[in-house]
């Protein structure tokens, strides 16, 4: 082993070191350190992104490193850059919120960095073992982040629920991995794929293993029926953490899903496709219908993110070229529109607490027209109305499903996407059509927080720009997935 072999690993190494540095710096700085540490964290993410770009660029084809533990290919670069960007946005959004709270900044920033490191490995893992390690690194950091407000009961409750269910799902995933290993004798994705291509197997142990791995992944992307942790974890977690976990870990889970099912298990598609079909349909229906009655915005966005996982699963069900790049595009779009929407939840304060109720939005358009317009754009995007990016993202997923011939699934998706408009527009109606001046109602105030505001502006720009001119993103995603022989 020479030093040169570690060059492709530079981004991961750098980020790990940065995480520890921030952790150490956080001890003396305490609560005052939130903003400087955030800046250091963002700088670290930016440098990592640059390294990812430099390492990923000269590669002609996919390059396996460390004996196939990690793979550097177009898809890994796409997902890694996406996750680094969305983590940076979430981090900056969190700064003001953390400063207003009574908790320090050091651990928070370093945990976000470690979680991001986990997501990077999930996106580039070429081996079941390395993927699992990445997943656990991400998951453990996120459990702590959810319980970060250690004196709040809700935050603790959410962390415990998330941890117990997450650990159980990891066990299922691990059991599935062991069954796959038992039947094929290898953990390497390439080798699994090669041996399944050579001898398509109906071995029940293998099929069970694949299905159990699928269940584990469905838990991580919060698909029905493995979604029950989501609303509680999202509601209980500090809002910036909710914003973070609804985006980067979810995108990473889909990246890993793609590596496993488009890469390794592709020859067994006939066995897992039905499972994912049912999960996708159930997720879209349940997520959207359950969101209809939520009065807490964070819970509503939790169910909405369940529903969005359902749309994204359509790309996996289709299991074709279009499905693969549509999933990439969708994850990018979803990340920024969801972060933007959470940005407003972070900024809203009612009676000294976070403004989490839908009624807190009453009359926002009158008091803060620009903010209301921004929120309107995110709600339109989440509902998939053009000219926002949300429409373009859904369009490609629907196209992938239609190309695959899954018309029934597509019809379910489009009908549910029309249903989703109802709950997103409950917020819009509050902002524009209620005054918030009724007796006994104290409308929430929008905090002045430049950093969060700037990040929201970034999300608005991306949501609109990709919606109006999606060609570059689509072209990039299309190039990125050439690794899969779909």
């Amino acid at each position: 082993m020479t030093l040169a072999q570690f060059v492709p690993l530079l981004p991961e190494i750098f980020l790990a070191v940065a995480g520890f540095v921030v952790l150490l710096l956080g001890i003396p700085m305490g609560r005052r350190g939130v903003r400087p540490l955030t800046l250091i964290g963002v700088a670290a993410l930016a440098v990592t992104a640059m390294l990812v770009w430099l390492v990923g660029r000269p590669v002609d084809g996919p390059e396996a490193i460390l004996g196939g533990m990690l793979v550097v290919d177009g898809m890994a670069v796409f997902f890694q850059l996406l996750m680094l960007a969305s983590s940076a946005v979430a981090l900056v959004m969190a700064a003001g919120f953390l400063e207003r709270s009574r908790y320090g900044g050091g651990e928070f920033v370093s945990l976000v960095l470690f979680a991001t490191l986990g997501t990077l490995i999930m996106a580039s893992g070429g081996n079941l073992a390395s993927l699992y390690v990445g997943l656990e690194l991400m998951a453990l950091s996120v459990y702590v982040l959810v319980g970060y407000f250690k004196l709040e009961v809700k935050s603790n409750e959410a962390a415990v629920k998330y941890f117990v269910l997450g650990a159980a799902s990891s066990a299922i995933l691990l059991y599935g991995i062991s069954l796959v290993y038992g039947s094929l004798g290898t953990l390497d994705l390439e080798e699994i794929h090669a041996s399944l291509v050579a001898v398509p197997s109906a071995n029940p142990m293998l099929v069970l293993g694949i299905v159990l791995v699928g269940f584990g992944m469905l838990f991580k992307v919060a698909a029905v029926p493995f979604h029950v942790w989501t609303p509680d974890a999202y509601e209980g977690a500090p809002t910036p953490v909710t914003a973070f976990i609804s985006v980067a870990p979810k995108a990473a889970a889909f990246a890993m899903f793609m590596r496993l099912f488009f890469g390794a298990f592709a020859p067994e598609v006939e066995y897992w496709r039905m499972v994912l079909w049912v999960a996708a349909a159930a997720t879209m229906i349940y997520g959207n219908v359950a969101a209809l009655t939520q009065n807490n915005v964070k819970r509503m966005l939790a169910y909405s993110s369940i529903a969005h996982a359902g749309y994204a699963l359509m790309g996996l069900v289709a299991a074709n070229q279009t499905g693969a790049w549509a999933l990439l595009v969708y994850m990018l779009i979803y990340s920024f529109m969801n972060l933007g929407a959470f940005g407003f939840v972070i900024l809203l304060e009612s009676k000294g607490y976070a403004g989490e109720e839908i009624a807190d939005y009453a009359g926002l358009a009158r008091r803060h027209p620009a903010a209301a317009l921004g929120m309107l754009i995110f709600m339109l995007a989440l509902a998939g109305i053009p000219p926002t990016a949300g429409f373009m993202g859904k369009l490609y997923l629907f196209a992938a499903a239609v190309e695959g011939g899954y018309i029934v699934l597509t019809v379910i998706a489009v009908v549910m996407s029309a249903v989703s408009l109802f709950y997103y527009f409950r917020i819009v109606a509050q902002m524009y059509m209620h005054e918030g001046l009724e007796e006994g109602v104290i409308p929430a105030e929008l905090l002045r927080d430049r950093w969060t505001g700037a990040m929201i502006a970034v999300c608005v720009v991306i949501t609109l720009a990709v919606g109006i001119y999606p060609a570059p993103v689509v072209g990039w995603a299309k190039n990125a997935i050439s690794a899969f022989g779909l």
Partner: protein
Amino acid sequence: MMDFQYGWLLNLICYLPLAGALLMMAFINKENSTGIKTWATLVAGLDFVISIPLWFLYKPDGVEFQFATQFDWIPSVGVQYIFGVDGFSVLLILLTTLLGFIAVYSSFTAIAERKKEYYISLLLLQTGMLGVFCSLDFILFYVFWEVMLVPMYFLIGVWGGPRRLYAAIKFFLYTLFGSVLMLVGILTLYFYNAGGLAALGLKGLGNVPTFSIPYLYTIAPLIPAEVQFWVFLAFFVGFAIKVPMFPFHTWLPDAHVEAPTAASVILAAVLLKMGTYGFVRLSMPLLPDATVKAQGWIGVLAIIAIIYGALVAMAQKDMKKLVAYSSVSHMGFIMLGLFALNEPGLRGAILQMLNHGVSTGALFLLVGIVYERRHNRMIAEYGGLAKVMPIYATFFLVITMSSIGLPTLNGFIGEFLILIGAYNHSWVWALFAASGIVLGAAYMLWMYQRVFFGELTNEKNEDLADLNRREQWTLIPLVIIAFWIGLYPKPFLDRMAPTVDRVLERVVVAMPEAETAADRVAELAAVPGEEAAGEHGE
């Protein structure tokens, strides 16, 4: 197939209101109510003025789509930005720009609060509507089709009546539900043209993937009947909700009753036309086989709409609701004309689309005028208005006559042509259609009688002011057009003739009696192959 001359003009017409709205958003203070009104009127008026050249520059004997623009938008999936119009869309664009201007101009006193947002919504709506009529790429078309819903939702929901929240979301959800199903139809058509739909075992034609509507026209005869059926069904739901056809009409009375006057005018005059526009532009030429097969069913639904709409209108106590239900009846008429699938029927239906826009738009304006004065629309509250508001009564009379189809006015020409078309298809259709005309005359005249004639019984009406100058000017253009179409419809019919001919030419292929149909399919099937061979050869 496309003429790119003056392509910039079409883009300018479409995006001018958007630019105006953005400038207003950025530069005009929300307290500056004069500035807002002046600017909005200026933008909408200018938009109408620059759309007038379309009327003169359009060449009825030229290629199918003129004033075209075309470039790649999302090249990797074959989405293009294609703008272009034929005579039919030119007429609808002129209708839109004129009514857009009137809607702005008529709102000066009706809208008391949040003026800036109101005029911004109106202008954005204008861009959305014009975009629908200009787009010749399915995705572009769909984008405008949905974009348009958002400002309309706000117009109803913010400035509407007491049940505005319910009406606004109902309008949005209904139309959205229809349009997302249309999207599935669009994607099916797209993949059928390209690589096929894998799991259904449906092999595609293997052409270059494209959403271009003019291109897809050429492959229409190659689409098998079964695919046509499902795509037609998906399109049908989208368009039928928009028209609205019975039984998808229930959102319409709610939306109309709650919407502010200008929004009602736009809704009736332009938005409803999008449904019928969709049938003529997309369903008929792209899916001829399914169109012919659906003819009977759609005829039945249209007849139900005509009779049912008229009967319900007759029972209404609220003037605005009466006009709303009369729209259901009139739109049924238009659908009947379209699906007669012959020349007089189609011509009459397209003309009637304009007529309905003019006369129902004017009716909503008129009802809005009296509502603004009394804040009441109940017919029973009025009576003898002709004595206090003679000018108003005159305008109302002319428009009523236009709506019920009195000769010399526009409604007559449209209804007459539709009747001929319906009769050519089947005398039963003509019979029902004629009875609808009788019912239409009955409820309109009865309302007119109750509102304007007799003694002035309600003392609140005694000192109602007659129309002021501005209100008269919102109505005069519509009255002029009503007489123009009624007395000399030829320019209008000339402009739509190429569209009518081409649509019929494409539909006739699928008609059972057309002997040449089989030959034509074979001939068209040969074309793409030859073209490909030619390209390779060169």
